[in-house]
């Protein structure tokens, strides 16, 4: 018997198929990160029983919920699952209290007991004073917490969260995110958290699975994923330059042209090289400094202002995204079409097998 959630399944939806193998231990928050249409929500729906698997099986704490081979299928209502939907789906005809009391009621509790259970969950999430309101009268952050309370009130063995913060505005999101992290830490079972927001995944998840086109393309802790992205999508999410190439000890020949001198760890064969945009230095002239081993000419293709810096899109061998301060842009007189020299220290290049 295996504690936690075990998914090893193929789920078909029309032309799309999700083929995935994930495990989440009790108490662990597994972040599922991926672009739209990558199959994240399909994974949650399969675990909840809203779509059956076409192959493989899904089990929670050793109890098989869905098994394509034996045909065993536990109906949605009988699964020990708490589901927080992206749009919350709070019942508009019920008060907040009755929304949260829904699961205890549906599982056979008397109305008064179910309401007590609901009230205690609402108090725990700091929502006690909203119990008599209708969901329509709540703010986004409050509705999100009610949705969480409603899912938890069913005492699930497993928590599924589908983009739990996506419907919130930026300010509320940070607030609710901190709180959600606390509640997820208190939850004893495994949690599956679907998101397309890398920051949310980095903050909330203990471990990450990155999905692309129905396949897991990377797994690891948030720190690993952020430092060593496996695909261009992940690299873009975490804001890194990513290059594929062939390593030969102290240098890497890049597949797209160009070469990098790297710290020699005796690495050979196919590798990925990650480079922070802020680790690239831009100059009008060639930098002659012995410590900087990588220097190459390039041309500025675009500039965009981020919060406190300017991101340059620079074309060369290789091309790169480069972060500089607005002051540097002015001092260097950088403009679109400008010829510049780029440089990067070997030590700033993260090289890892592909």
């Amino acid at each position, binding site marked *: 018997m295996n504690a936690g959630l075990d998914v090893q399944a193929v789920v078909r939806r029309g032309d799309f198929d999700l083929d995935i193998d994930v495990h989440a231990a009790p108490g662990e928050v597994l972040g599922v990160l991926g672009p739209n249409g990558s199959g994240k929500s399909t994974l949650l729906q399969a675990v909840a*029983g*809203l779509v059956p698997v076409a192959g493989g099986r899904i089990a929670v704490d050793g109890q098989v919920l869905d098994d394509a081979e034996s045909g065993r299928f536990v109906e949605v209502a009988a699964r020990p699952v708490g589901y927080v939907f992206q749009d919350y789906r709070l019942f508009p005809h019920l008060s907040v209290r009755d929304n949260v009391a829904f699961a205890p009621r*549906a599982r056979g509790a008397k109305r008064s007991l179910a309401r007590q259970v609901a009230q205690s969950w609402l108090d725990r999430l700091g929502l006690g004073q909203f119990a008599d309101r209708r969901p329509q009268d709540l703010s986004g952050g409050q509705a999100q917490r009610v949705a969480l309370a409603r899912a938890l009130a069913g005492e699930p063995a497993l928590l599924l969260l589908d983009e739990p913060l996506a419907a919130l505005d930026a300010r509320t999101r940070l607030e609710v995110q901190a709180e959600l992290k606390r509640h997820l830490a208190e939850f004893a079972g495994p949690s599956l958290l679907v998101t397309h927001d890398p920051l949310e995944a980095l903050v909330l998840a203990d471990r990450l699975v990155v999905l692309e086109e129905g396949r897991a393309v990377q797994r690891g802790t948030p720190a690993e994923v952020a430092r060593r992205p496996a695909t261009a999508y992940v690299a873009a999410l975490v804001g890194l330059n990513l290059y594929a190439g062939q390593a030969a000890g102290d240098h890497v020949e890049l597949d797209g042209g160009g070469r990098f001198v790297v710290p020699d760890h005796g690495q050979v064969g196919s590798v990925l090289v990650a480079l922070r945009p802020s680790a690239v230095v831009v100059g009008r002239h060639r930098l002659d400094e012995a410590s900087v081993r990588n220097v190459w000419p390039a041309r500025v293709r675009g500039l965009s202002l981020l919060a406190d810096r300017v991101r340059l899109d620079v074309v060369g061998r290789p091309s790169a995204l480069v972060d500089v301060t607005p002051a540097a842009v002015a001092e260097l007189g950088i403009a679109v079409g400008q010829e510049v020299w780029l440089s990067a220290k070997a030590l700033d290049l993260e090289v890892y097998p592909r």
Partner: protein
Amino acid sequence: MARPTTLRPAERARRAAGGGQRSAPGVILVPALIALAFLLIPLGGLIIRAPWTHAWEILTRDDALDALRLSLWTTTLATGISIVLGVPLAWLLARTDLPGLRWVRALVTLPLVLPPVVGGVALLLAFGRNGLLGRYLDQWFGITLPFTPAAVIMAQTFVAMPFLIITVEGALRSADAGYEEAAATLGAGRLTVFRRVTLPLLAPSLIAGAVLCWARALGEFGATITFAGSFPGRTQTMPISVYYALESDPDAAILLSLVMLLVSVLVLVGLRDRWLRVGASS
């Protein structure tokens, strides 16, 4: 040569606000007004010709009261039966993929377009003393349906239930299945989902469908008179009573008609949010 006209200040302001030219040319205006007059004059006639001075006296006479009473309780019962049987059928039509459902839907809506008298004949052939089922009801249980209040209710249900079914079915189709999914993940079985989520969310449409169904049952004439006949106090509903009174007692006919007109207006007002606003907002 351009011919100038006069633009009144009100019209000037309206056009300035982006209203465009809104006056109608005569070719459209004249037939439109004739149509309006055609619809309104008869109703106005009812009001003008009504014997207002002894209206109360006529309406509280036994025969008028009998018809009123009979109509009220039979239509209410017919509506109740339509809800109990029609909502499940609407659910079946909206939410399942049973084979032949397309045909079932067509058959269900047939009474909407079928001449009611044909419905009455069909009911007679099915439930009459020598009818398909009526024969056995008579032989085995001694139950005779035609020309009883039960027949009135059956005729009304036959013609009115489809109104409820299509209203509720439409609402079920457009309803957000997300709430039902959410309820299922919270441990609610299919029946609980239906009872605690689907039905309450359906309530506004259910009420509209029921009102529509009730109004149609109240006006039912052809199927009723064919299947239930016209026995004062037993099967003579208001519309039938009006029809017979027109020869013997025109004043009563007019007043009963006015009562039904009033009910219709009330139904329209009650459902205005549902229908009239559509016209206003588009």
